[in-house]
Each structure stands twice: as C-alpha cells, then as structure tokens.
C-alpha cells in the first residue's frame, strides 16, 4: 500500500508559497490597515485585511454541492464517472486550501438516486496512494461495499454498483482504505448520496431548493490556509472551526416556507448538539435508514459522527428579516456557531406540508437467534489500539458469522470515557435498549450508526440482509477506527 501524504505536499507551487509569496502576502495582510491609511490604492491583501476575520461566522452564503450528472442512462440504470483527485477549495476567504475530493471538490458532488434504478459509479483513483469508496448506509453487495482491504491502486478504476433497492434515505459515500480514513475524510473524500422513493414522494415533503443537504465537519487551519491535522488517537481530532458544506459557519437565505434540512455529521470525531435559535421546533422525519414511523418534534438533537438526521423547519413561523442561528450546544467558544438562517421577506404559497400522522410502518424483524456483547476499550500497551471485545482489526480473521436473513442482539458496552459511534456496513439495525434511558422516538427507525456514550450499554438488533459476504463494523470516530477499532463479519447464506 503506497504511503499517504497530505494534499499540500503535492503542490510544488506551495513550496514557493511557503518560502516566498506566502510570507509576503501575510506581511501585507498584517500591515495593511495602518500603512494604507489615506492612500487611494487598495491592494487585494489590504482589502482582505480590512474585512472581518476569515473565521467570522455567517459571512458566507451556504454553498450547495453540485449534483453529479450521469454520463449514461438507460432503462433502470445510471452510470456516473468520478475522479478521486486533488483540488483546491476556497474555504477561508482569500485562501486556497489543498484538498482531496471526488471530482476535486470538497464536499464532493451529490449523487441523487431513485429506488429501483441501479447506479454504477466508476471511480478513477488519481491519487498517489490507494483509495476506495464506501456507500455509508447502503444495501450494497460485499464486493462493492468498500471493504478496507478492497482498494483501488493509484491510476486504477473500479465500477461500484449500487442496486438502490432500499428505502429512501440520506446516505453518503466516502473513502475507506485501511488505516487512513481519519486523514482522507479530513482532507475531503466524502459526499452526499440522496436516495428517494415513491413513498417519500407521496408525502409532499419539500423538494428541490427546499431540500438541503448540510454536511458538518470541524477543521483547523494553517497560516497558508491549508487544513491542519493533529492526530489524537484517544479523543479523535477536534478542530476549532465548523464547516457546513465546506464553508465556515455560513448563512443561508430562506424563504418563509418549509425546508427539509438533511444533517450529516462528517466530522472525524466530534459530536454535536444542534439547537435552532432559542430551541425552536424542528420536526424530525428521518434518521440514517430513512423515514421514521411518525414525525418527532425536537427542540435540540444530538448528532454523532456519521449519523444523519433529517428535519423539517417551518420558517413561516419567523418574522421576515429574522436571523436564526443554528447552535452547537456541545461546542467550545469557536465551535458553537454552526450556521445561520436569514429569513427573507415575502413568501409564497406552500405546496409542501409537514406530515402529522404515520409516514411508514417498520418491518418486523425475525426473532434474534443470538446475543453478543462487544466491549469497547482502549488497549494501552506499548502500541496504541482501540479494541472491540479485546480485539483489533485483523483482515485475515472473521469475528462473527451470522446467517443471511437472521437477526441478533448486539450489546455495545462502553466502559471507556469516549463516545463511540458504532457503524455496521451493508446492513441496518434498530436500537432496542439504552442503559442510560429510554430510546428516543427519533432513534426508533432504521439506523446504521449509533453513538454509544461513555459508560453506556446500547443494545441493537441488526438484520443480516440483503447480501451474504464479508463486511466490517467499526467505530466511526475515524482515529479509533483507523487504530484498529474494527471487526469483520461474514454473512453466510
């Protein structure tokens, strides 16, 4: 496996910037306000210096990731073509941040798929090291799941085939090459994958411009604008800046209408507690695996790494001209501001509606035919390793072999002092019990990731469908997963 290197190293231009232009630009920036007083000529560096800090929240409009267009479509099939490559993103105003990205952008382009239409995503690895792609939350055959050892070598390609034979859900695709996801996702290899179906369309939920994916991730920066990464195997990476769709705590102009906001926590290891304004109502309609049975009103909700929560917010309730902040109540000083909604004047007739009654009926699971307990702990010997049931990842070992079509009870027991967002590939589960209290109605639908709190035991019931084969389950605090907090299961037919 060729060695990972951060995107910055590839840019010979950056060597020049490091030693020359970078320092010069910084000097200009710092010196500008006083030296330019009374002068007519205003350089771009001076203009930048006179502006607010590049970290000031609510300065930029929310970017929306472009949607990927198929290069070929035929009956029941869409083919997409994606380059996994380096790119530059303007995240801090006036700075270029080197990234890795699908199609060279961060976050990558959104794929919108429909149930019943197969999507083939041809991924070309144009990075100098191995990469692969995992469709997180997807029912995907094992060979296309992005198992950590199934990688695309530099210069190679792979056609990922996604059957899309599952309920509408907010999925995402990201890198999953063994041992380096903390860095590859941090530097940008992630994107939204939105699957819809007939049932959702019949609910008259907000669509198009009113259906907005929001990808949250915390980052830190170097003085040249590059992403700064500091490994912390114990807690996982924590950045001092929250990005939404690749912009520092942006603002979003909203009409006085109903919006569907799809939240994805794509942070390495940070958990969020999201609250709108002074605790205004958000109606949760979906979680990882799609619609809840019934909508749930929430004033605040937690969002652990890799989890998704979809809410409807009725901005008609706010006065025109209002500015409503989405706050991370778990944040530190600079990581509280997530984004702001600026309510525009006017407003039109609303076609969408907020569902009030039953939206779906969850499938009955087969009775569990086994019960397993997985202890989550840090092995503190001479080498650092997070473990599940006292084992670290070993690709040559299968840790559990459930039978296709069955279900089991899995207990995640977390005696450690860290949150462990436990994720199961290729399948979904339901939460049966939390030792810390009742399972919130917003968590009672299908899930693929569950934040297990320190000291908590969570019992989940995975359903081993629809494909046999070799998959993994792991902690989605990326530093934990990379440092071996991952086991293998083989679903046997």
């Amino acid at each position, binding site marked *: 496996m060729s060695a990972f290197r951060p995107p910055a190293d590839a840019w010979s231009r950056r060597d020049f910037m490091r030693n020359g232009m970078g320092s010069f630009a910084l000097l200009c920036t710092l010196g500008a306000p006083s030296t330019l007083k009374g002068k007519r000529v205003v350089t771009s560096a001076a203009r930048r210096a006179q502006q607010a800090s590049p970290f000031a929240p609510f300065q930029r409009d929310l970017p929306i990731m472009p949607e990927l267009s198929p290069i070929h479509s035929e009956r029941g099939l869409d083919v997409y073509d994606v380059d996994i490559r380096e790119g530059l993103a303007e995240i801090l105003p006036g700075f270029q941040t080197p990234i890795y990205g699908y199609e060279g952008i961060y976050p990558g382009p959104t794929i919108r798929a429909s149930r019943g239409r197969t999507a083939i995503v041809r991924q070309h690895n144009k990075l100098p090291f191995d990469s692969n792609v995992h469709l997180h939350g997807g029912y995907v055959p094992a060979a296309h799941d992005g198992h950590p050892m199934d990688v695309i070598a530099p210069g190679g390609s792979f056609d990922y085939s996604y059957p899309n034979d599952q309920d509408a859900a907010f999925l995402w695709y990201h890198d999953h090459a063994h041992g380096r996801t903390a860095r590859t996702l941090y530097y940008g290899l992630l994107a939204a994958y939105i699957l819809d179906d007939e049932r959702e369309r019949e609910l008259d939920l907000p669509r198009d411009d009113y259906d907005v994916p929001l990808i949250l991730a915390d980052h830190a920066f170097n003085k040249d604008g590059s992403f700064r990464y500091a490994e912390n195997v114990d807690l996982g990476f924590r950045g001092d800046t929250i990005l939404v769709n690749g912009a520092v705590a942006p603002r979003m102009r909203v009409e006085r209408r109903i919006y569907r906001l799809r939240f994805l926590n794509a942070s390495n290891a940070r958990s969020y507690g999201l609250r709108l304004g002074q605790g205004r109502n958000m109606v949760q309609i979906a979680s990882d695996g799609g619609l809840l049975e019934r909508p749930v009103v929430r004033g605040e909700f937690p969002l652990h790494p890799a989890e998704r929560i979809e809410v409807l917010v009725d901005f008609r309730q706010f006065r025109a001209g209002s500015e*409503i902040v989405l706050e991370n109540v778990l944040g530190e000083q600079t990581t509280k501001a997530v984004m702001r909604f600026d309510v525009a004047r006017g407003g039109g007739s609303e076609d969408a509606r907020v569902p009030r009654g039953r939206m779906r009926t969850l499938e009955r699971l087969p009775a569990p035919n086994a019960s397993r307990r997985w202890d989550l702990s840090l092995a*503190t010997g001479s080498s650092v390793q997070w473990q599940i049931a006292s084992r670290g990842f070993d690709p040559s070992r299968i840790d559990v072999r459930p039978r296709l079509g069955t279900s089991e009870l899995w207990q995640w027991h977390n005696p450690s002092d860290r949150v462990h967002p436990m994720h199961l590939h290729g399948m979904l589960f339901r939460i049966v019990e939390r030792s810390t209290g009742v399972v919130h109605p917003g968590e009672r639908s299908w899930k693929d990731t569950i934040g297990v709190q320190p000291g908590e035991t969570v019992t989940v019931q995975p359903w081993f469908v629809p494909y046999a084969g070799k998959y993994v389950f792991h902690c989605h605090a990326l530093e934990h997963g990379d440092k071996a907090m991952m086991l293998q299961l083989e679903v046997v037919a």
Partner: protein
Amino acid sequence: MRHGSLLLGCALSVAVASPAAGAEVTIGTNETDAVHPVWSPATLTIAPGDSVQWKLTSAASPPLPHNVASTTIAGTDSWNFAADYPAPEGRQTFSTPGRYQFYCTFHSDGSTGMAGTIVVGNPPPPPPPPLSEQPFPNDGGVLGALEIGGLDRTQPRLRSVRVQRMRSGARIRFSVSERARVTVRFKRGGKIVKTRHLDASGRAGLTVRGKQLRAGRYRVELRAEDLAGNRSGVRTARLTVR
C-alpha cells in the same frame, strides 16, 4: 508524520547517559484542556549533562493515557506509561547539544498536539516553520445573539372593509396589514352559504357574481391569517342582494 525533517540541529544523534551528575528537570502533563492535553513544559532548555524526568501528573478523571515516543531519545520505548497511575517515570540524561523532540502517541502525530522539544546546550536556532505548518487559530469571536427577530406573533389587521352591492352580486374591498390569506364567508340565516379565499397584501378586493348569491340578506365575515398562522379578528359587514 515527518519527524526526521523536524529534528533540526541534532541530526540523528542519540543521547548518551552521562555519569556526571547534572541538574534534573521534570516534564509533566497538563490536562486542563482534556481535548488538547500538552506537556508541561513543552519546550525545555537544559545544559549538556542535565537529566530530564517525564512524570505523568494527570488531573483528568479518569486519567488520560500517555506515553513518550521519540526517534532521537533513547529508551522511550521501554517507558510504558499507558494509563497506570501512579505511573512509572521515564528519565534520560542528555550530553550532546541539539534539539530532541518527543511526543505522546495517543495525543500527537509527532509534531502537533502533545509534542515537546528539549534543547540541550545552545544549538543554532531552527528556521521558522513554513506557513503551512504554523497554526492559524480561529479568531472569529464569541457567538452573539441566537435570534434576531424571532417568532412572528403579530396578528394581521383588516381595515377599511367595504361591501358594495353591484348590479349583479357584490364587491368586497378591504386592506390587510401584512401578506395574509383572507377568508371571506357569506352567511345567510346563520348558515355559511359561500366561502372565498384570497392571498392579499395591502389593499385588495374580490367580486362575487350574482349567480353565486341568491337574493337575500347576508352577513359577510372576513378573517386574515398570515404565514405564521396568526389570525386577525373577524370583521363583518351586511349585504343585501336583490
């Protein structure tokens, strides 16, 4: 990550324990910020022949696990601090001038986070790190008001309601204080015989054709509801259709 390139001035020299008894300095742990623990002090200047003792002085509960790793300081591999408290101590004597970097593998990638440097003697100063390695901390300030404006609780108001009989039917005119959906009901004998809705803002009106209203005396009721669901009071007027 790239320890080698960061170790300036000391090349790959390995510290050799010296029998000469120099001073001993202690490096402890500072976990005031449990998310970003640091060595305390993180940078230390000593004279050749001095010793350094690493001691875990954990304040967090439960204690954070730490260890000491280095590519240039001998013996660190054997100091298995892990999370045992009281922890064993690590000690090394430095005789060769230079810069020696060390870090905790749990909380640092080797150059950032819980990393430290021991400067022995008076080696030439290292060149400043490139901008791509200098932190650019978020100075965006404290989050201010969570809401400006806020919930719309202002009821729309209906004014200047006029009902004008026409040759055939009637014309209703009114003024509404904000954009609202106005419902107009025609009641006869206490029963609603006709309901009309219209989206309006400011002055507005609607016409009801005679075919739709039989001859008789009507009570016309108007009510406005804004986008937020606030409702105005009911305004009424009389209408006689002949």
